[in-house]
């Protein structure tokens, strides 16, 4: 009887079978990695905007409070993207001739909205409320990242459900004093956990069971 297969097929076929485990593993990792990559999550990807608005400049250099522009953050689920009117409250006096600001002036003059590209988006079946987070001592930078260092704004976190849930399970890791909520340069103190536990009690932040309840965010 003649051999049907070459000697090398022994190694190859064994590799094929036992290598399958590794190949599947690698594939699974690839899917995971792509899912976590900036390509997918837009994390750390600065977005082009009609006006190259710099949070770094306005927040860190000029020291403007978040709420000056994001007016409804303490009352409503929406933080509120400022009307052109708010831009013009300064820029009708400052940088009057800057070419960069031409779209702003045009918008104000023609009463046509500026069309900003959304940076931090949630699916429509997620009901996030800014006001309650802010009032319970969750700072802007907890979710939006180091906004004071962003020349162009990017998404700092995936905003995936698991990421949200992590904080909802352990609010003490992120909560800060109410007076620090709008500080863009806030750095968590070394005793964050102790502080967090105290603040959770003080601010009557609900039990993780309540916070991880589905209807907290979905309905």
């Amino acid at each position, binding site marked *: 009887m003649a051999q049907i297969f070459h000697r090398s097929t022994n190694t190859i076929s064994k590799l094929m079978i036992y290598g399958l485990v590794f190949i599947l593993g690698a594939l699974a990792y690839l899917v995971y990695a792509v899912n976590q990559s900036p390509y997918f999550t837009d994390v750390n990807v600065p977005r082009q905007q009609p006006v190259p608005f710099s949070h770094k400049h306005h927040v860190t250099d000029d020291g403007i409070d978040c709420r000056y522009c994001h007016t409804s953050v303490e009352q409503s689920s929406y933080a509120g993207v400022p*009307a052109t009117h708010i831009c013009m409250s300064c820029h009708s006096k400052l940088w009057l001739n800057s070419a960069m600001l031409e779209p702003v002036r045009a918008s104000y003059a023609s*009463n046509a909205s500026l069309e*900003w590209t959304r940076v931090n988006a949630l*699916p*429509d079946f997620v009901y996030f*409320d800014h006001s*309650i987070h802010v009032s319970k001592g969750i700072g802007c930078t907890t979710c939006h990242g180091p906004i004071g260092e962003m020349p162009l704004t990017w998404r700092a976190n995936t905003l995936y459900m698991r990421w949200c849930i992590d904080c909802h399970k352990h609010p003490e890791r992120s909560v800060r004093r109410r007076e620090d909520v709008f500080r863009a340069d806030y750095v968590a103190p070394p005793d964050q956990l102790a502080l967090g536990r105290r603040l959770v009690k003080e601010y009557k932040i609900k039990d993780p069971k309540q916070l991880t309840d589905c209807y907290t965010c979905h309905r």
Partner: protein
Amino acid sequence: MGRKEKGRSTFDLVQIQAKLEQAPEKRFWRGLEELAGTPEYRNFLQCEFPHDPRQDEKGVSRRDALKWMAASAALAGLTACTKLPTEKIVPYAQQRPENFVPGKPLFYATAMPLGGYATGLLVESHMGRPTKVEGNPSHPASLGAADVFAQASVLTLYDPDRAQVVIYDGRIGSWSTFLTSAEQYRADLLLRKGAGLRILTGTVTSPTLADQINSLLAQFPQAKWHQHEPCNRDSTREGAKLAFGEYVSTVYHFDQADVVVSLDADFLGSGPGALRHAHDFSERRRVTSPQSSMNRLYVVESTPTITGAMADHRLPLRAGDVEAFARALAEGLGVKTGAVAAAVPARVPPDWIPALVRDLEKHRGACIIVAGEQQPPVVHALAHAINDVLASAGKTVTYTGPVEANPVNQSTSLGELVADIQAGQVDTLVILGVNPVYSAPADVHFVQNLLKVRTRIHLSLYDDETAELCHWHVPEAHYLEAWSDARAYDGTVSILQPLISPLYDGKSAHEVLAVLAGQEGLSGHDIVRDYWQRQKPAAGFEAFWQRSLNDGVVAGTALPAKPVKLSGTFATQAAKVGGSQGAGMEIVLRLDPTVWDGSFANNGWLQELPKPLTKLTWDNAALVSPATALKLGVTNGDVLKLRSREQEVDAPVWITPGHADDSLTVHLGYGRRRAGRVGTGVGFNAYKLCASERPWVSRVEVQKTGKNYQLVTTQHHHIMGKEGEEVEEESVAARQRSLVRVATLEKFRQEPDFAREEGGEKAPSLYPGYKYDGNAWGMAIDLNSCIGCNACVVACQSENNIPVVGKDQVARGREMHWIRVDTYFHGGLQNPETYNEVVLCMQCENAPCEYVCPVAATVHSPEGLNEMIYNRCVGTRYCSNNCPYKVRRFNFYLYADWKTPSLEPLRNPDVTVRSRGVMEKCTYCVQRINAAKIAAEKEDREVGDGEIVTACQQTCPTQAIVFGNINDPNSRVAKLKAQSRNYGLLTDLNTRPRTTYLAKLRNPNPEIKE
């Protein structure tokens, strides 16, 4: 997962409205005219919501693309990850309107006129678009409740089939060409002092409109004003005139009545003031302890109505026999009716009238006799006379001057108009807001005569049957788009303020009349405000105006009670006017409980709303009693040819337990030829059988056609059996399973715990169970108050973005209502006791739906809600199978309408719109719970009782539904649940439902044996 409409995508709409803020009136925009030249405005005309990112993509919309992607990806087996699409944010350019916080709804008071009468409303507005209607607690006709029509009216506002452009001679015209032509007509008419000008309106209670018409008639002394309302209430008007010699309005005070007798009157279900009647009536049925008292209701009626279902004694009687009954009753109480001898109809049990007479006499001064619109004036007059003799007049029944601006006999009025046309005296006819081509009685031959008029101008919401035959058609502004005013049943005036600028450039009747009066360019706002400025002193007017707008009622406008006296000639007149129907089959024509007079025919919510008791949807039918069906040899769906007054229609039969024998009820409002995509061609037009004289009841010849027609219901699917024995089977099962628990008041007094289960509610469990120590949401529904009016069903549909599925899907058993009104009968089918039971998600603590879900898409919250997470649902439908109450609803197809752009702003942005393949159900309005909780938490306090009101509860006219925290012993719901009448459905399954019921009580007269 389905996308829902969120505020951010309509920033642009808001921006347009922000522009409108520049208009002189600060808080409310008036119109888009000043913008008409701008590109945005033109865009706005093309699609109501310009710059909507969803529409910017040409060709395949993103939604369609996603649908295809989902399907193909499913086939390819890879949808591990979905990347969120890039979205745009379009903020305001100029400063935001006052009081406006993006993402927060605002409420404005206004009122909805229906048949001329106003119901006060509070309308919720999200980002400048009205999304939800609620009753106005300070309005006397509402007291916080809203009926199905008000709830559904917001859908009509966004109806894509509404008339959108001015039409002249079948071609698209414009408002400005209309203005030019109107100028000429006016010039012509001025020369002739208005000769040939006729104005046809519905019932008018609006002081401003009446004032406008009167001043127009002053300008054109030869012109005439006619009125035609399909539900014209002539009997009521003429009945009052017969009794008192003048037109007066009657106000009933059911909260003060111990005994109520309805002579074929559906006073809880329809007519002006029905919401208030229901409220007041149920106040006398709130039994909290065995010591409580309760009113007693006798109903004599031909067609089973929700009022009849509430009756302690109900007598099915042909409509034509009610007059004889009324006479006999009147004579029994000593009223001189003038008739020789009132023959009591054979169908009345002999002990009935004497017992009723004794009961009424026992409660002198605390009785109400109320006659129905179907009955001739003489029955109304007899009712007034009985009220008078029982000393109720002035106590439980009061009279006021007419609420209508110009009360006339509308049948006569329309007849006169037609006679004038025939005489060639009419050359310009202005029809404001009515559709007489569809709704005029056949014997006036309106269409042939209408065509003889040289200039026909029509204003209406839809390009309807009348619009088709008119030279000019002007789109009418919806009441949520226009300024106006109107009176409630007691005369209270509300100012109607718009919540949105007209979507389709609609005009109000005020604006059209202003044009005719030569005041073109005067806006609706100016007209209404001017009128009120003339009525009030200049000083303090602004405050008055703001307060009236804010409150939704104009203080002190309720009409004062007016002393009346039975006219001396009443007895002789009564004898004259009466006329019996005699033997043979009679037909009763009634306004439809869901599409009204046909004006809501294109409203999908109302078309799909199951009619009370019959549960029919999407059709009208000839309702007959089981015995009559047997006599005719027909069963459900068999088509009969009905011939009456030389007209005939084909009508499918629906067997209705409790209907009077030898009588047949047909609802009006169907068979529309030009209603729109929803309503056109649905049902048959019964107006053909109306006549100006005695329009609602007549003799009818019935003939079998041998044809069959599919009628669709949401319950009683099994009534197919002869004599409807299968309905009986359902009801028997319901009784065996103690779904409805009932006792007489007497039995309740002896045995207050009759509804309690032995150990059922707290059955033992192997498992320890969860502790709910914070808020624990629960609901109690008082079956003794619930009248089964359906308002909760539409309120829920509106609040929770519930789709309409269409007749074929309802036929398959796929209706989507989260809350339903179940109807069961007891005691034979000829005259059964009828029980309505509102069923919604029971929010079981041990929810059987939850542990079978493979993906934890339905779980329990720490506050005891049975949560349904749409975006997690994969659609195995196992939960629905395992739900004993069958309250879950499934999106078998993509039911949510994503294709019609005008319907997007209608949606509640706080509720996810469900996509295909997803289960959904009642959530106890969790969006409201969460909003209240967040508000309370920000203020560092607990949520108070009554702070959270579910949509069904809010609109309920009888306050039968109470929601709240059952852990708070002082909450209303906890107190109700503590009552001995409290019981749960199917508690032997140990589901521990959070929704429980208070057992129904009946208060029969012991003297009447049934």
